[in-house]
């Protein structure tokens, strides 16, 4: 699976304003709503479900990266977006570091394989430190989009 298969270009947030875990999640879910990817009446339910998942253990996986996510019956396919926070947000990460880079994912409940393949792609690409650093330094949604495209074209990792 490639970034283009699940990252909604119109929902990318290159300069997150929020300074809290819940704030970041709300901002990213709102951007998916603004991009027409989720239903307005489902917004609060989705935010609550993602926060519920965070209570089971932070999705901050280290290296300043978090992957907040949930299953939700209102989406027909996996939808995701990327957020960048210049100052970083305390996300209770496993390594204690502040999180600058967010990949928020909402997947249909009956498609666990798609969620796994998205995680596989994100983690494989982020193991490349250059890609990870460039993403965190992105100033505009276009910057992020271009980096994701280059990653999809295998310009950062081989295979």
């Amino acid at each position, binding site marked *: 699976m490639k970034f283009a298969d699940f990252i909604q270009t119109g929902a990318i947030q290159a300069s997150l304003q929020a300074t809290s875990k819940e704030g970041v999640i709300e901002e990213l879910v709102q951007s998916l709503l603004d991009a027409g990817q989720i239903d307005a009446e489902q917004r609060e339910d989705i935010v609550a479900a993602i926060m519920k998942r965070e209570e089971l253990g932070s999705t901050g996986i280290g290296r300043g990266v978090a992957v907040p996510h949930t299953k939700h*019956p209102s989406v027909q396919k996996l939808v995701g977006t990327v957020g960048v926070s210049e100052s970083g947000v305390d996300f209770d990460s496993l390594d204690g570091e502040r999180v600058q880079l967010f990949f928020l994912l909402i997947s249909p*409940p009956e498609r666990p394989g798609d969620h796994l393949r998205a995680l*596989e792609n994100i983690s494989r690409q982020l193991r490349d430190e250059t890609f990870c650093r460039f993403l965190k330094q992105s100033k505009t949604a276009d910057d992020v989009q271009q980096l994701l495209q280059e990653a999809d074209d295998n310009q950062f990792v081989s295979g």
Partner: protein
Amino acid sequence: MSNAPSNRMVTVRNPQGLHLRPADMLVRLATQFESTLRISKDGQWMDCNSILSLLTLGATQGTQLEVSAEGSDAENALAAVCALFEAGFHEMNEIEDTANPIVDR
């Protein structure tokens, strides 16, 4: 003290596969042993102490993986990892209420 690596095959049993929480559990388990634990899919070996590495396996339900442990407590480490896979990362009985994902307790 035998330090030759010990290997064993495991199968991903839980329906959700080796997603973030199971990967987190594996890393936490691996840190409890002195031995170096690695996991491979199709000959591609990943360190068991990195969530990022484990997630790149993209191991869905039914996937066969090879676990390797090298060190003084290798046998115990292998047994613990195999038990965790066998238990389906304790989410075999997870009830998926798809109609209402927010569970009020």
